[in-house]
Structures are given as C-alpha cells and as structure tokens.
C-alpha cells in the first residue's frame, strides 16, 4: 500500500480521467462521426484488458506466494464456463466461489 498522498492522487486522477473518457464523445464530439478503425479497436477493450489483468493472478496467486493453486485454477475455469453458458454474472460468481470454497475445504 502506497502513502496517503499517492492514494488521493489515484482517487482524484482516476475520477477526472474516467469522467474525461465518459464525456469524450457525448460531450465533445457531439454529432460528428468517428473513424471506423477507432471504434473497431474500442469494441475489444473490455474483453482484452480484463482477462489480461486476471490471467497472472489465476496462474500465480499472491495468496499462495505465487504457487499455482488447483483450487483457484478450478474456480476460475468454473466461473468462466458457467458465465459463458448462462450469460449470468451472478450465477458465474456463485459457481466460482462455491468451487473455490469447496476445494479449499477438501484439499
């Protein structure tokens, strides 16, 4: 955990930056059209950034000091599988959490 000043820089910077991103088009572009290639890349931000963020945590969890953990691997696999099949965020979370707790208890 970094110092308090750093924390406030992060909170305020993230607040201003997030507002900027949200206001960028509705506020500033108005009715002008945007290049197709920009929109095409923006469409894949969420599905690229979030898995990239999670993947190292799944394979080398901080809680086990980077040792690959079968319970966490299985929980991740179950979460994504249930999410893909049901398209239901809550169902996927519950399935993943049950797998994690079940295996942590058994192993």
């Amino acid at each position, binding site marked *: 955990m970094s110092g308090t000043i750093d924390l406030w820089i*992060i909170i305020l910077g993230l607040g201003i930056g997030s507002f900027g991103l949200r206001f960028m088009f509705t506020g500033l572009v108005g009715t002008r059209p945007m290049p197709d290639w920009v929109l095409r890349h923006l469409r894949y931000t969420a599905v690229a950034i979030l898995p990239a963020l*999670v993947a190292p945590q799944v394979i080398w969890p901080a809680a086990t000091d980077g040792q690959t953990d079968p319970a966490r691997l299985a929980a991740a696999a179950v979460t994504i599988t249930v999410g893909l099949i049901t398209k239901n965020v809550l169902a996927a979370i519950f399935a993943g959490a049950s797998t994690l707790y079940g295996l942590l208890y058994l192993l």
Partner: protein
Amino acid sequence: MAITTPKSAFFKGALDGAPFILVIVPFATLFGLLATEAGLSVFETLTFSVVVIAGAAQFTALQLMQENAPTVIVLASALAVNLRMAMYSASLTPWIGGAPLWQRALAAYLTVDQSYVVSVSQFERAPEMTVPQRMGYFFGAVFSVAPLWYLFTFLGALLGTSVPDSWALDFAIPITFLAMIAPMFRTFAHVVAAFVAIIVSIACVTVPYSLGLIIAGICGMMAGARTEVWLNTRKVQP
C-alpha cells in the same frame, strides 16, 4: 408501459434498470470490504466509489496498489480498464448528443456498464423516442444503481476489518472479473481478443511496472479488430 413524457421514460428506465440491483449490491460490498482490507479508511473507500463510480477500474487500482505498483501505472492501468467507457460514450452520442450540455455531463458521470446496456438496447428498440425522453430513460436506468453503489461500498467498508484470511477474498476480484466478461463474448473476434491478451499478459509477466497489462491489452484489441475485419471480408466474398 408506454413512453409519452420524459417522466414516464424515467419510470420505465427505473423499472428496466432494477434487476441490476442484484449485481450492484454484492459487487459494491465487495469493493468496500477489499478496500479496507488493503488499508484504506472508510472515508477514503467511500470517496473512491463516489468520485470514480466504475467497479472494474476501482478493483484494478486496488489490486495494483496492493502490489505496490507506481502511482502512474495504477492510474494508466485503471484508466485502460475504463477505456470501454469512451466506447459507451461514443455509442450513446448519436442518441443523446442533442441534449443540453449539463445533462450530457451528468449522463457522462453516470455512464456505467448497466446504464449503458439498458439504455442503448431501449433506444434501438424505440427509435421514435425524443431526446428528452431518452435522457429521462437513461437517468431512470441508473437511478437505483448509483446510490446503491455508494451505500453498499460504505457498508462493506464498515464490515471490512473483521473479515478473516480464510475467506480467500484475494480471489474475489479474479472471479468477479471472469464472471463479468463471460457474457461479453458475443463474436469470435471477442474470443480472439481475450485469448491473445491472456497469452501476451502471461508472456509479459516479468515486464516491470505492470506495463505487461497495457501491452497485452493493446495486442488483444488489435487482434480483435483484425479478426473482425477478416471475418467481414470473408462474408463479402462468395
């Protein structure tokens, strides 16, 4: 319910946005819990949620702060996660671009996954809606989500310090993210984008300052965009 005025649009939006309460309540509580676990005070945690109002970006920042990443990297990574908000903003512009500036500014602050998804699908279903009706609907859709996001962050933060390690909350963020992205895989290009991003992020795990995440994200976005172009040209050819 027929939409005849901005007011009836607001109520229809509030109704259509209501199911997201089930997602927001546990998600906000979790943020409150994990933020206080990470050493933030209750006040800092609540301010975080009010100022930023973006779950995924807040979790990303929290994760990287716990890994002692430099402030610049925390900001860049969390904003990269929030880049999709620019996409939402772009996609809302043709529908609400004609509204007064103060309404567009307020709508920008309240642009979250839930308000965006609910509103755009309604706007596409009912293109005859006027701009004031669309704004009414949008604010209705986010009417329950935003206050509950603040309230349950606060309650989670109050609970936070009493949660033991054996609850394995370290893995709550990965599970929540995986659950959130699973319904987003609508096309083959989405799958390619995620797959490339995962491979690159694992390959780049030793890159300093968590820059591997940005590199992996950009590679994934390029892969998704290229795949989309490739699929479209294949469709055009006989």
